């Protein structure tokens, strides 16, 4: 990839100037001091959704003048609405509404993890994002007593200070998988597939696989990395069960999460995963995020998460194991409203990825894979470029995420209050509380 000059670590003055301009600009636009940039947004993440996320990340509150609830995709979450009860029956002290969920429902001796929000952070590998971004997400997870996943790129040393809140991902390339990082993890996540590229494995383009990234992954610098698909050691549920046995031997206390995408038989896969020993079934829908994926794979392969959640939820009930397993949804969940709708459709909780990035400034320009510069995200998010990664300063990013999660939790409680529910767990599978908005697709 042609570059005009070799990037170098920026000076403190340059970092300060650049970040100051970025942060001020984000706030000014989100607060309505300037017109909404005309090229911002798309059908799934509209301009208002992006700006409302920036607003929440800046203030910890939902905005008054921006649509922070839905996108413009004309389907799925964007066509669903809650049937609120009469205002006089709303729960008054909504701060007391319970939003925590248990992650271990198997009744075994393993850790009883109960994050206070029905949210944890999805896998974004070192290489796809910088250490600064990973650390900000991990520190925020620690603050919220929830979790974030390493993704498939190894476990940078810095993360160990948050180890009780870091999920170690084992994916098909086994990049960076070590006994130490498995032993450190409260949850070990097997990534069988990713919603943005189901059936295709991971993908890190050469320009982003620099020396530090390669070292972490045990690969050759600046060589494109394709995780195979599937696990070459897994061709049946029995093989999958052996995988889980292996992890449980290395770390007898860790919960096991199985992340799968959403094919036609995802319900059967979920049941198989449960019987193989999984505590968490993590469904990643077709509109999920990615650092790099073939465009044809996004949306065209497998189904959106809104359609997969009820399918799996109902099948787990039918099989009599719904209360023994935690069902987590991801892949296109953007807002507090989406989270509540996913739970009403049958999930216990959700995993966020893209919205974390948007909170830190992402405009969804889709150049995460490297873009024409080959250097990755110009905002410093999905890059390990020595200069660009400095645009994300940890302290600022942690605060943004903390604020965002505060606003999201408020919105979940707001919805529960208006439904007359005092606990998010009571919302699970309550499709009777939803209505579908007509108007044609």
């Amino acid at each position, binding site marked *: 990839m042609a570059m005009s000059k070799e990037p170098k670590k920026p000076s403190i003055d340059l970092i300060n*100037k650049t970040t100051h301009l970025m942060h001020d600009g984000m706030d000014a*636009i989100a607060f309505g001091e300037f017109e909404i940039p005309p090229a911002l947004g798309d059908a799934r993440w509209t301009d208002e959704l992006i700006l409302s996320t920036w607003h929440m990340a800046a203030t910890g509150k939902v905005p008054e003048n921006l649509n922070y609830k839905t996108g413009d995709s004309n389907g799925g979450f964007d066509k669903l609405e809650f049937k609120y009860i009469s205002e006089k029956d709303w729960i008054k002290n909504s701060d007391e509404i319970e939003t925590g969920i248990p992650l271990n429902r198997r009744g075994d001796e393993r850790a009883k993890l109960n994050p206070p929000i029905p949210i944890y952070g999805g896998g974004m590998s070192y290489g796809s994002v910088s250490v600064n971004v990973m650390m900000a997400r991990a520190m925020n997870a620690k603050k919220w007593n929830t979790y974030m996943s390493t993704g498939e790129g190894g476990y940078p040393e810095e993360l160990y200070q948050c180890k009780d809140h870091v999920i170690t991902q084992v994916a098909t390339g086994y990049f960076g998988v070590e006994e130490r990082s498995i032993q450190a993890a409260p949850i070990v996540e097997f990534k069988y597939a990713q919603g943005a590229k189901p059936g295709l494995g991971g993908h890190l383009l050469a320009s982003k696989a620099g020396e530090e990234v390669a070292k972490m992954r045990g690969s050759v610098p600046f060589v494109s990395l394709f995780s195979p698909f599937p696990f*070459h050691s897994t061709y049946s549920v029995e093989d999958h069960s052996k995988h889980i046995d292996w992890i449980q031997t290395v770390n007898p206390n860790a919960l096991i999460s199985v992340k799968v995408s959403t094919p036609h038989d995802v319900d059967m896969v979920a049941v198989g995963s449960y019987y193989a020993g999984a505590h968490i079934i993590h469904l990643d829908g077709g509109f999920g995020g990615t650092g790099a994926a073939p465009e044809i794979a996004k949306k065209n392969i497998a189904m959106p998460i809104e359609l997969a959640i009820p399918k799996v939820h109902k099948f787990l009930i039918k099989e009599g194991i719904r209360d023994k397993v935690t069902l987590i949804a991801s892949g296109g969940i953007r807002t507090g409203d989406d989270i509540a709708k996913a739970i009403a459709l049958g999930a216990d909780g959700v995993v966020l990825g893209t919205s974390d990035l948007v909170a830190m400034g992402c405009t969804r320009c*889709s150049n995460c894979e490297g873009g024409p510069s080959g250097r990755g995200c110009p905002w410093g998010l999905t890059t390990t470029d020595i200069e660009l990664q400095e645009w994300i300063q940890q302290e600022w990013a942690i605060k943004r995420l903390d604020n965002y999660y505060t606003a999201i939790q408020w919105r979940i409680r707001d919805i529960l209050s208006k439904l007359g529910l005092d606990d998010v767990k009571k919302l699970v599978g309550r499709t009777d509380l939803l209505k579908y908005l007509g108007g044609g697709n």
Partner: protein
Amino acid sequence: MQLLNKSEEKEEGQKLDSNSKLTMEEFAKISRERADSYHRYHIEALETRDYQALPNRFIVKVGKIGLAKLIISETFTYWGKWDVVFSRPCTYGVFSGPVGGFSPRPEKCVGCLRCTVQHPDFVTVEHNPKRKAMGDNYLNSKIISTIDEEARKGTVPVRGQGYRGRFGGPGWDGMFTDMSEIVRPSRDGIHGRELISTIVDIGSKPLSLKFDNDGNLISEGPRMFTIQVPFIYDAPPNEIISNKLAKIWKKSAENVDTLAILPSEIVLANNLASPSVVPIIPLNSLDCAKSFKSGTRMVELDGWDSKSYDRVVSDCPDIIVGVRLEFAQGWQQKLDEMMLSNVPVIHFVADNHGIGDGGRFIMDLLLEAHQKLLDAGFRDKVTLLNTGVIVAADHLPKAIICGLDAVGLNQPLLIAMQARLNGDLSSNDYGAKFPRKYTEDWAIQRIVNLTCSWRDQMLEILGAMGVREVRRLRGEIGRAMWCSHLEDEAFSDIDGYVGGGK
């Protein structure tokens, strides 16, 4: 061949002919020769520059006064710290010209919007309306941009972030392909270390073979040949086609081992007959079929008429005779008649927006045609093709799932050549403005690149499904999911949901 051990080698002691036992040395030599002559099919993509670049995606506007004020202010603030003074809010070079932001380079803009966020008071980035206005509501600017990139690079477009569009949608957008979570060929297949075949059979296969008591075949064998990719290059509209274009079609088809379907008069006038060229025989000019006996593997009759068909078959007994058929009212009856006449290749020609008989979308029509052939026990005796409506790589596997063996392309090839189409793109009543002074080699490489990209994307989809060859995808509706069906399943118990995309 049979291999000898050393002692046997000595006993034989002399050079052996090809039917005799071989020495180790001879065996090694022959093996080496065979290995050296081995050829694995692949398409040679080469990055091929633009002759007529698309309008820029974005317009970048910079307020000159605001910029001047910023420069003055930063020069004073950061005097001596030139890395800070000269830093620019763009990693793509939009402001890297000799006068920086005073003359931005919008052709380099990717829409990250960092500049407008950092300087909302004097920088604006807008979508370029000229870019947005390309094409029409089906062959839209996004699809044109994608084809342009595929034809330039020959690679699979890879981007970060997730899907950006509508949930489901009309036409092909309402269909998802399935994937296999665990039991499937390795992704290695996509990268050429294992084989995923995209070969397609063109012609007719008998449902059974008959042998006499001596084991000799007494029934007719398959009348077919193979092409390497499930797409063929179909003739562009009469308003557009030229001798130069016909040669490009032919040479591109030869390059990737597929077929170019061209009007017979152009084939004859330019001496283009070749195994890769399929002349179209007009119903009012059947005699010209006799001209295509040498080297031609297939001709297409331009419409259905049983007598005309019989006559061309009689005139060209060694050539596969296919029939082009519009998806217009009465196509089912014509399909029945063609089955009776054992037509080996049926090539549907659809409206370019995919609207056919009764206003139905092509997806339904293809499913019906495929099912009709299945019900008649005729499906393996005929090759189904369709031209029109396939303008993006994801349409290809979806059309094959609906029952096609291969698809015909013409509009995407024109876009690959950076032609600007004008007129009614839904019909064949449209024109094209090609780049000035483009060369044949350039155009061929652009088409080859597009083919390579689409084939590789086909491999991605097949790989995700765990299907090892594209022939097995034909009519495999179990490998597809329709958004409307999934919505019915997921939302039927939700108030207000009525189904049917409403």
